[in-house]
Each structure stands twice: as structure tokens, then as C-alpha cells.
């Protein structure tokens, strides 16, 4: 399941709902991204997440479908927030549940790595020296690359 929303999410409730009643699940891997109060050398007051409504949902669904094709998942979830977020607030939740932990971990990392390089979100940071659009990180491209080796054309 995927969701794009302004409001915060209840982590415990989301994960309980994700695994409820499915006793085939042996492992649940989860990643939560949070707003940090420092970027580079500068204090961050807040950030605003812009996105492309319609295309965002389409891409997130495709990323999730791709994960389900690559790993034997029992359940998966992507929740991404938009709008203005302050340090300490949650930005994104990705989760993958499988019979065994290795598949859950790999799928979870795949979901966040691909989301970061494929889902149309943009971060505007409010720093001491004014607002600044975040630039793409080379590290994120590299993290996504490792999943590309298996299937060069998938979900693009």
C-alpha cells in the first residue's frame, strides 16, 4: 500500500495494521526518514516537500510492485508526507514484511533507495541564509544503482 499525505502517521498503528492476521510473516523491516536540524554546516529551521500529485502515486505504486516482484513479500507499505516539516518530524515510512528477514531487509532498502531517485518529490530547506532547494545526492544515485544491476530496465 502507498499513501501521500500532509499529516503525520502513527508508526505503531501503521505497522500493526500491516502485519495483522498474517502469520506467515517472520520478519518486518522498517525505515523512517526524519527531518534533521542541521544540513551541511547550517541550521535548518524547516523544510517544505513539494511533489507532483498523480505522478507521485503512480511512481510509488510502481516501486512497490517492483519490490513485490523481486522479493517474496507478505506485505509492504510506503507513506510519504508533503508540505512543511520541522526538525524531528517524520518524512517517510517504508516497510516490507516477509517470511525471512533477509528478503524483508533487502526489499525495505530497495523501496527507500528507489523512492529517493524516482518518486517526484523536491525538498525546499529553510536555512539561516534563506530558502534553498536540496540538490540530489550522488550517494542516493549509487544506492539506487546497486538494485539496477539485476534488471536494468525495470520501473523506468
Amino acid at each position, binding site marked *: 500500500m502507498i499513501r501521500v499525505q500532509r499529516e503525520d502517521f502513527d508508526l505503531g498503528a501503521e505497522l500493526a495494521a500491516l502485519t495483522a492476521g498474517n502469520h506467515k510473516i517472520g520478519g518486518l523491516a522498517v525505515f523512517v526518514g526524519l527531518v534533521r536540524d542541521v544540513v551541511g554546516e547550517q541550521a535548518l529551521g524547516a523544510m517544505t516537500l513539494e511533489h507532483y500529485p498523480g505522478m507521485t502515486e503512480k511512481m510509488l505504486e510502481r516501486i512497490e510492485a517492483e519490490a513485490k516482484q523481486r522479493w517474496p513479500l507478505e506485505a509492504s507499505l510506503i507513506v*510519504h508526507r508533503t508540505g512543511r516539516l520541522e526538525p524531528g518530524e517524520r518524512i517517510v515510512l517504508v516497510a516490507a514484511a516477509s517470511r525471512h528477514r533477509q528478503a524483508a531487509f533487502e526489499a525495505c532498502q530497495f523501496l527507500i533507495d528507489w523512492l529517493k531517485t524516482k518518486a517526484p518529490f523536491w525538498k525546499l530547506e529553510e536555512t539561516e541564509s534563506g530558502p534553498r532547494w536540496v540538490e*540530489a545526492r550522488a550517494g542516493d544515485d549509487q544506492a539506487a544503482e546497486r538494485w539496477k544491476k539485476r534488471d536494468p530496465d525495470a520501473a523506468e
Partner: protein
Amino acid sequence: MKLLYFAWLKTKIGTAEEELNPPPEVDTVAALLDWLAARGGGHAEALADRNALGVAVNQEYARPEDPVGPDDEVALFPPVTGG
């Protein structure tokens, strides 16, 4: 043709969305970007560096050689930075 601009492209061009009517020979992504840049002003500035530019046609990532037509929704944006 419906054009959408995101992040700093929106700021430089000065609008998030506009309806434009490129001539019929503007039938690929690359040709559209050339035509937009030739309008000068914010468009030219926003399109100065096309290496990092992302393009989606009808909400699908598109390459320079991909076709565009009058009924399409075309979005231009910098590299994505979500998550």
C-alpha cells in the same frame, strides 16, 4: 499542451503551470525544450542546463527523443530529492 514546472524551475519561470501551443514541428521532448528556451526570460534561464533536467510526459519519465503532442501534460523539474 499543458506545461507543469516544479521546484526551482517553477520559481525561475514564474508559474507552476501554463497552457502553451507549440507549432506542429515541436513533436519531441528535445524540440519542446529548444522551443521553450527560445522564448527567453525565465524559460531560457530555467532551461540553461538541461543535463540535470527531469521531464515527464503524461506523468511518465521521458527522454529527449520521446514524442510530445498538443494534448499532452509535460512536466519539467530538477532531480528528485524525496525520502
